[in-house]
Structure formats: C-alpha cells, structure tokens
C-alpha cells in the first residue's frame, strides 16, 4: 500500500538518520522513525550509542582545524621556501 505512512526503517536507513542526527541534519519525523527502529533493533542501538559518544568526545576535546584556504596559503608559502632552500 503506497498510501500507508512508512514508520519502519531498514537498518541502513536508520544508521543514515543516526549520522544525520549527529550533525543536526535530521528532521523531527526522521528522528521519530529512528527511535521507533531503535526500540526493536539491538545492533542499531549499539551503533547509535557509539555514535553519540563519538560526537560528545569530539565536542569535549574542543579540537579545531585550519580551514582549507588557510592551508593552501600556508602551502604556497612553504613551497616557495622549499624551492629557495633547494636552489641554495
């Protein structure tokens, strides 16, 4: 029946929603479906727990990255310096 609202997710779909939820990209409806799936699926429950832990740990570590533009600028400068040392 195509008119029936789909409430049950498959495991791969559930994991996808779980990943999205960790990056705040999942809609409310998706999250409801995820939680329904988690009620009866042990494997996905495990995955979700680990996934949440990973997010927490990254938040806690407060690591920061240089963005791509910065890195490219640094690379240019370093390349120039490398060439200079090679010619000397």
């Amino acid at each position, binding site marked *: 029946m195509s008119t029936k609202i789909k409430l049950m997710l498959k495991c791969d779909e559930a994991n996808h929603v779980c*990943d999205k939820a*960790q990056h705040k990209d999942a809609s409310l409806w998706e999250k409801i479906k995820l939680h329904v799936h988690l009620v009866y699926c042990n494997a996905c429950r495990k995955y979700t727990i680990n996934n949440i832990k990973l997010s927490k740990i990254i938040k806690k*570590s407060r*690591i920061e990255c240089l963005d791509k533009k910065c890195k490219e600028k640094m690379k240019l400068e*370093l390349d120039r*310096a490398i060439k200079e040392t090679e010619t000397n």
Partner: protein
Amino acid sequence: MSNHQINPNKWIDLYSDYLFNYTISRVNDRDMAQDLVQDTFLAALKSMKNFKGEASERTWLISILKRKIIDHYRKVNSNKGKAEVRITYNDESETEGDWLEERVADPFDKTAEDTMQNDELGEAIFNCLSKLPEKQAEVFRMKAIEGLETEVICNELNITASNLWVIIHRARTAMAACLKENWF
C-alpha cells in the same frame, strides 16, 4: 640507523591540524596560532639537516613549535613589562593580612590536569584521523570538526549528498572503533 624520513611537501597535510591544536590550547588566538605553526614549518625547513631521524617527524616539529611558543610569550611579556602596573591595596578588615598573590588568584583558570587530558584526547583523535583514508578524513574533518554545512562540502569536494553521507558513515564507524579502546 635513521628510520624516519623527512618530507616537507607533506607537512601541511599531515601535521598542520595537530600543531595548530597544540598551539591554540596555549596561545588562545587563532591568527597567532596559525602564524606560529607556519613559523615552525619554515624554521624546520631551515634546520632540516639537523634532523637525525631519531624521533618521528611530528615529535621533531613539536619540539620546534614549543620553542616558538616560548619565544612568543617572551615577546609578549617584555612588552608587558614596559607598562606600569598599579595595584590598589584595599583596607577592608576581612582581607587584611592576606597575601597579595592570594587576592589575584584566578578561580576560572583551567587546572593543569584539564589541559593535559584535553591534549591527550586531541592527540588521540588526530591519530585516529590520520589512519583513515584521505578522503574520509577530509570529509569527517569538514563536517564533524569544522561543522560545515552539507551543501558547502558537496560543492567544494564535488560529491553528491548521498555520497557524502556514505563517507561520513564509514569515517564515523572507523573513528568510533579507533577511539573505543581508550576513550569511550
């Protein structure tokens, strides 16, 4: 016997994030941290022939960075010395007899343990990240650490959204497995 090779062309890809994090937890200023990291790479390039290959490349770079950070603070402090510091002694009876040092203690200062634990955690994350395939590491970094929008990453790397989520899924699974032993 030297078993560690040196290759400056890969420094930025391999170590810039790690060094940047090391710096930013110590100087608290993004621009300054970036400058210090770049200075470190340039200084390392100059003293490349002193690299004996006993330590890993990263350890060697960190030791140079440490000197750079110390130099940075020396410079800052010598500027500070030129300014006059005035302290008003208040004569409230409650604080009478307290040492001056006790009055200026900063209760919000992070303890050494906090900093140390965060350093270790950061190091563990970067170690795990460096074990991932390059593409996965890049996407994970942009999405989970820099927190960029899906569209932005897709445009920049020229991949589809579903492609991105597959990569994220693999990266997250690998990262979780890698960090599991010590940090979960």
